[in-house]
């Protein structure tokens, strides 16, 4: 096999297998797990509006972050009720900005 043919075949196998495995795993799934495994999402598609009405639990579900880590980032006690609305918590500053910074930091790691 000549160099250029080898390169073309290699790249074709690479991209076809990447596409195939992505589709298969998305369709078939990967079993149950304690930590949800999924494709990483782009941060730019997230919005952080009307945070006051949301609870801690809904924030975790919407942005797919861990409750424990969110509590740490927002400097809340670990025994805080997840059903508490953000507007009822003693957080100083713009809630949207605070949650955005916390989520980006958690996705960042």
């Amino acid at each position: 096999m000549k160099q250029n043919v080898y390169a073309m075949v290699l790249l074709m196998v690479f991209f076809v297998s990447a596409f195939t495995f992505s589709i298969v795993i998305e369709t078939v799934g990967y079993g149950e797990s304690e930590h949800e495994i999924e494709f990483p999402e782009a941060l730019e598609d997230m919005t952080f509006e009307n945070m006051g009405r949301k609870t801690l639990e809904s924030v975790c579900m919407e942005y797919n972050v861990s409750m424990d880590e969110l509590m740490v980032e927002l400097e809340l006690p670990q025994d805080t009720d997840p059903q508490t609305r953000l507007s009822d918590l003693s957080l100083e500053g713009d809630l949207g900005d605070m949650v955005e910074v916390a989520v980006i930091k958690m996705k960042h790691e």
Partner: protein
Amino acid sequence: MKISNRLIRTIILTVFVAITLSLSIKHFAVGSFLRPYGGTLCHYCPEVTLATSVLLLNGTSIAKVNVGNIVALLVLTVTTLALGRGFCAWICPFGAIFEYLNIIGNKLNIVREPPVKTDRFLKNLKYVIFVGLIIITTGLGEYIFRDFCPARAIYLLEMPHGNAILSLVILGIILVGGIVIPRFFCRYLCPIGAYTAVIAKISPMSLKLDTGLCIDCDKCAKSCQFGIDPKNEIPKMECTNCLDCADVCPTGALEVKL
């Protein structure tokens, strides 16, 4: 004008470097026009899956192991099984850095090959690192090496903090080594290289020398970035099928075959 295999390979590697950088820019830059999946290099690194493999196979999932990591390992395995260690030479975005460093080293005329025995001894180090990462990750229950990874240090586009500073020091040492010794990291330290080496051993495709055509000019040995002399036995575990040797061979004696 004939375009060399080395130039084509460098261009292809640069495309993968650009894709990897775009992932980082896309992940961190709000409003970016780039539209691949989200995440950074870390979310598509097969080493994460390799190091956490024992835990994953035991049903323990690890925080921050993504589907992208698992798909990357499957793709790497299939590609290597089918075509040998071509991933290392033609696709790996971190290996590409060492192609560029080799160009710099050649321009400065400071590229050196270590003695054969030293080279052979050091090439075993990557297997030790590979196994060590699995053992330590299994023991600790989390992938702590993310913070020390030199590939992450170069591709994450963030200011270093905490352990990331140590990863920059490691990266600095590796990059200096990469200027002097071709593919320094790939030869001696890369755990993904160790994995592909083991898989490549059972791959049906490998580089072969036609001794009837060989004229002993030694151009192939001088062109090899992995310190292999194709006139001797070509080790399937170390040869990455970069085909630079085939490109410089005046008689076409080198070819990848079943």
